[in-house]
């Protein structure tokens, strides 16, 4: 399967958008080489601003650009941007409803070997509690391009989660993409696997394995984590009666929590969340870290078996 790094697609699409729309400006916090915004910088140096290692300042500066009518994309490592800049995002972006595109890089296990100081597994939770901010994590590079474009067109704040390492292509150029609209990638009857980002490929892999065990799994690519596409999710779960969520994030307050909150209120069914289980990571390469943290197709398969067992009891 072809693999492309989401950040590569992000950086390239930003350049294309820059060509089309002179109002787009890009801000970075001294990680332009990692975020790939250096591509934009090379092409449009006058519209690129390196704010240095100042994650609180970059959020406010982005908000100021938005006040003056520009469309700022602000970039930094997700943990530092959302950690240091949370209160600025809270007031100057969310409460002020400014059209700022917040782009968190190196998400999840992206820089596995750097260890816990560099591994954002809490960013979705940090953004979910802020009213009015859309949260988007594309499943692959193709979808990333569409998401960046849609983010630029969307009027309002948005948080885009961008991974560093290549992930398999699981969507096609022709697939429609709409912010806020979940996509069913594989239809099934027995269980709904709801995945986001790099975990979508693993959800599909698990579904394949489950099919050989006689279990028919529906796989949903939930690229927009907020607002939740309640309609698509409920329709699927009403059909299957069991759910497994999968995300490269802590299970506390993330996508799985959002789905669980919805289902507990609207249609309670057995549910398991695959994600980081309230622990810090360790220093390990990406794939190894995914194995250590249980972010695997196997973990999804086992969780599916558990929810199905619960339904039979």
């Amino acid at each position: 399967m072809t693999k492309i790094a989401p950040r590569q697609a992000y950086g390239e699409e930003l350049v294309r958008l820059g060509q089309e729309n002179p109002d787009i400006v890009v801000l970075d916090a001294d990680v332009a080489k990692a975020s790939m915004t250096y591509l934009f910088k090379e092409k449009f140096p006058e519209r690129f601003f390196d704010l240095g290692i100042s994650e609180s300042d970059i959020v406010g500066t982005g908000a100021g650009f938005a006040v003056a009518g520009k469309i700022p994309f602000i970039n930094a490592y997700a943990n530092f941007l959302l950690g240091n800049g949370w209160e600025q995002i809270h007031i100057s972006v969310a409460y002020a409803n400014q059209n700022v595109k917040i782009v968190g890089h190196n998400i999840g296990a992206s820089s596995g070997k750097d260890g816990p100081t560099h591994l954002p597994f809490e960013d979705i939770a940090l953004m979910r509690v802020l009213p009015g901010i859309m949260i988007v994590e594309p499943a692959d590079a193709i979808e990333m391009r569409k998401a960046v474009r849609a983010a630029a067109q969307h009027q309002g704040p948005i948080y885009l989660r961008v991974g560093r390492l290549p992930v398999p292509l699981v969507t096609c150029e022709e697939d429609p993409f709409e912010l806020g609209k979940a996509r069913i990638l594989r239809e099934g009857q027995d269980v709904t696997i709801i995945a986001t980002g790099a975990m979508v490929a693993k959800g599909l892999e698990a579904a394949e394995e489950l099919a050989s065990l006689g279990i028919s799994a529906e796989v949903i690519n939930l690229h927009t984590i907020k607002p939740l596409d309640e309609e698509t999710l409920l329709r699927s779960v009403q059909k299957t009666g069991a759910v497994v969520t999968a995300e490269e994030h802590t299970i506390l307050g993330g996508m799985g929590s959002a789905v669980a909150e919805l289902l507990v209120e609207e249609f309670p069914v057995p549910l398991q969340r695959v994600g980081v289980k309230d622990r810090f990571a360790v220093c390990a390469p990406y794939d190894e870290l995914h194995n250590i943290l249980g972010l695997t197709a196997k973990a999804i398969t086992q969780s599916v078996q558990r929810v199905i067992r619960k339904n039979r009891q």
Partner: protein
Amino acid sequence: MIQGKSLSHSELSEVARRMRRHILKMTHKAKGGHPGGCLSATDLLDVLYMNVLRVDPQNPHWDKRDFFFLSKGHAAPALYAALCERGFFPEEELFTFREAESRLPAYPSCESTPGVDMASGSLGQGLSIANGAALAAKLKGSDQRAYVMLGDGELHEGQVWEAMLTTAHYHLDNVCAIVDYNKLQLDGRLDEVKSLGDLPGKWRAFDWNVLEIDGHDLPQIEKAFAQAQAVKLQPSVIIAHTIKGKGVSFMEDQVDWHAAAPSDAELKIALEELK
């Protein structure tokens, strides 16, 4: 009216007197707010809104407007008084301050109030915003300017110093910061809580053009804004020495009036002093 009004100094002083009365009546009626830090900022906001800012009360989102960000958002009543005097809304509306569905919430909100471009109340954020707006103006080739008012206590926030570097690095001569240097904060005197040391020296060391003035002297204030505008390739900060609670004898230089609403009797005395 888009250009500043060019009021004379006696007219400005009359506006400042009215603004102080508005502030006291607003906080009295709302039984809350921060009169001390409003009254120290009044003369600065008076000159800024009457004679300096190019804004259009009929069209608050006019795309060539100058920007003002009240980073010390707790002085919202002073900002509302200035916006009212500039014609953004009628005087009666001032007295809806802090009411549930009012357009004039306790702290500034750009979603609610005509003429307010950014939410504030969480100290430390305004200079970054001004930098962003100023950079955008430069990019557009526009002569728009961005003004921001900071409290002296607010300068404890690290983000301000990040932003000071940004302003200087990009040579944003269209940014003018104003420090309301009243030497008091919430818990006490700045020098007791955490001293700022050589404040002008610190801004200078960050490559800012520093103008130090008496923040209650209207001609000095007006001159400082003009000087700031004349300096090229360097941002300016007006360090305005002020008195917290200025204009009301029993509030002046009193920490206790940081956040306290005047009672009926106190209001009466205060208004008498500001007749």
